């Protein structure tokens, strides 16, 4: 009789090591400063994990981290940003099985397809980094001796209320915001926040500078208004706000510093996107210079 077989009989089944789902702020994984968490359940009602329940102060810290990251990220070359987004896609591909398993309530074949779509979405946006300027910029033929060039520039810090489609939808709102040089603070799906933190692990290992993407889990109704009214946030994506009253309130609060607002709109995440998610968070800068000897 081998020792092994004897041991198998005597030892209890191995207890797995669970992951603590924390926030993702400035490239680090802190717990909510509030110490709060909320129980996340499966679609069948089983307990999955406790997610951090971010507070307004966590949102504030995330905005500060995003602001700090903005000069470096917006100043990076488009080629560099494209490379990093592609790297995120590579890392996601490598964890395909993990994400598929984490997509609660989705049959495994479908889950695999959603992860594939998320990877492809990242690749699609990665390629835009050094093309959007050519497509959305212009050499303007003005009636005078001037060189006149318009080029798109990132708006700044974008608050993103992510949709309930926990991976594909999440990737589909983050990638267009950051590929052009914005930094963002994302409020993950309240119902299904766990993949967002796993995605954060991917982001953290993809050469993405800390603070470019910050992810908060918690209650949308609690966090969104603070981000909508934050005077150092330049734009807000309300895609994930399903309550029309909350959407109206957030849009109204966003008026205080004239944030650019992307209004909620039903989206089919499986379809190939157009440019609007990128252009919503782009400014056009036009530079004039005389032409003379």
């Amino acid at each position, binding site marked *: 009789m081998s020792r092994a077989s004897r041991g198998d009989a005597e030892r209890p089944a191995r207890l797995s090591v669970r992951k603590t789902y924390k926030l993702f702020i400035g490239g680090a994984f802190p717990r909510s400063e509030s110490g709060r968490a909320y129980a996340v359940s499966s679609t069948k009602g089983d307990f999955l994990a406790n997610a951090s329940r971010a507070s307004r102060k966590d949102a504030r810290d995330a905005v500060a981290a995003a602001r700090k990251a903005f000069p470096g990220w917006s*100043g990076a070359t488009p080629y560099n940003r494209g490379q990093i987004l592609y790297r995120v896609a590579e890392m996601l591909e490598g964890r395909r099985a993990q994400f598929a398993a984490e997509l609660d309530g989705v049959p495994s074949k479908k889950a695999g397809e959603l992860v594939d779509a998320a990877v492809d979405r990242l690749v699609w946006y990665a390629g835009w980094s050094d093309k959007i300027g050519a*497509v*959305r910029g*212009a050499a*303007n*033929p*003005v*009636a*005078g001796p*001037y060189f*006149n060039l*318009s080029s798109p520039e990132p*708006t700044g810090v974008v608050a993103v209320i992510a949709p309930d489609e926990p991976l594909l939808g999440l990737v589909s709102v983050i990638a267009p915001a950051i590929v052009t040089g914005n930094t963002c603070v994302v409020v993950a799906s309240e119902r299904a926040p766990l993949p967002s933190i796993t995605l954060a692990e991917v982001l953290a290992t993809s050469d993405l500078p800390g603070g470019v993407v910050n992810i908060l889990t918690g209650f949308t109704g609690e966090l969104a208004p603070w981000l909508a009214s934050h005077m150092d946030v*330049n734009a807000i994506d309300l895609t994930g706000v399903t309550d*029309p009253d909350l*959407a*109206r*309130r957030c*849009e*109204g609060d*966003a*008026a*205080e*510093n*004239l944030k*650019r*607002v992307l*209004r909620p709109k039903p989206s089919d995440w499986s379809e190939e996107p157009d440019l*609007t998610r990128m*252009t919503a968070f782009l*400014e*056009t*800068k*036009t*530079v*004039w*210079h*005389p032409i003379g000897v």
Partner: protein
Amino acid sequence: MFEYAPAPESRDVVDIKPSYDLFINGEWVESLGYERIKTVDPASEEILSEVAHATEADVDRAVQAARKAYDEVWGVLPGRERAKYLFRIARIIQERARELAVLETLDNGKPIRESRDVDIPLVAAHFFYYAGWADKLKYAGFGERPRPLGVAAQVIPWNFPLLMLAWKIAPALACGNTVVLKPAETTPLTALAFAEICRQADLPPGVVNIVTGAGDTGSALVRHPDVDKVAFTGSTEVGRLIARQVAGTGKRLTLELGGKAANIVFDDAAVDQAVEGIVNGIFFNQGHVCCAGSRLLVQESAATAVLDALKRRMATLRLGDPLDKNTDIGAINSAAQLAKIRELSDAGEAEGAERWAPACPLPERGYWFPPTVFTGVAQSHRIAREEIFGPVLSVLTFRTPAEAVEKANNTPYGLSAGIWTEKGSRILWMADRLRAGVVWANTFNRFDPASPFGGYKESGYGREGGVHGLEAYLDV
């Protein structure tokens, strides 16, 4: 002494009626309300005319007319036909350029030199430019069949009355929308003249509707439930209110708001042209310009030389009768605006900045403010932060390019900026870092219909002009 004799442009070319109604559905119709607004010549305080103060019910009639015109005529008209209407309008504006220039100067107070050489030519150019787009929209990069939005509610300011009308109406019509436009309370006359031009062009009734009035009229227009699009140019304060009103309605919104632009002069600048640029930046149109270069950031090593040259140049500015062809600085548009300029200037002095203005006799009647420069201004002073919207320049100094960028961007606004240096790489380095929608390098206050204009941050969103300007009026 070689003194210029008065050279007034003749008023005979304009025929101002004592009273104007509203322009709705191609007709002049009486307001349903009784209130009238008097519009005055700010240079003489003479009452030029009185116009209707449109009520909510008037606005409703105008929106209904625009909706009907959109559904039945304009929205289904082929682009090439829309184009021809716009070309017609452009031509009529050119034909009536002299008249429009004089009318603009009378109602607004701006020098005839500017209305004649800048405003009206740009108005015609804007209609020409967007006329050409009307049948080429599928090439603009917004898809194969970009659709118009519907009825556009447009509210414009008093600083460039007809030019702002052109910036609003030309792209809206080119894209297939119909409009209800409210001109500013103090400068309605050229918009009403434009209504006549629409009739001369045989523009179908209801495509353009002009409702005169005050803030409540504008508010009623913006709030109207059958409006698909709101476009506003004016103060950030009002822009904020409109953004709040529009929240949750799904109406599209573009805003062109205030500014506090930095005009940055390095010690290697072409100093004579820089001085012209500073002067043009802040004294053009009495400083009633949202993109005015109201903060001069001058490199400390060149500050004395630049300021001496600037003051010498300011002493040659000619303030007075706006209709005089040699006038450089006209009248402040209204008593209220004059009071605001005075209040902020007094605050500048109280905060310790040093005020200077050339010897400049002001006419007795009318609203006037001399070209003024404040030196020793700090970022913390109100005159370095708040939009004065008058001929008042705040001068600050900097030591390094990075400091210039930091100070230039240290404002909630982000409409425009100026850079003056003979070094090309520095221009591009600065232009990259300035958070402003328009960056003028070695020039200032240049406008062209082909060039997009609009701000970052609290200077608003959306662009007017160029291919970018189409996006504001297309369902994309």
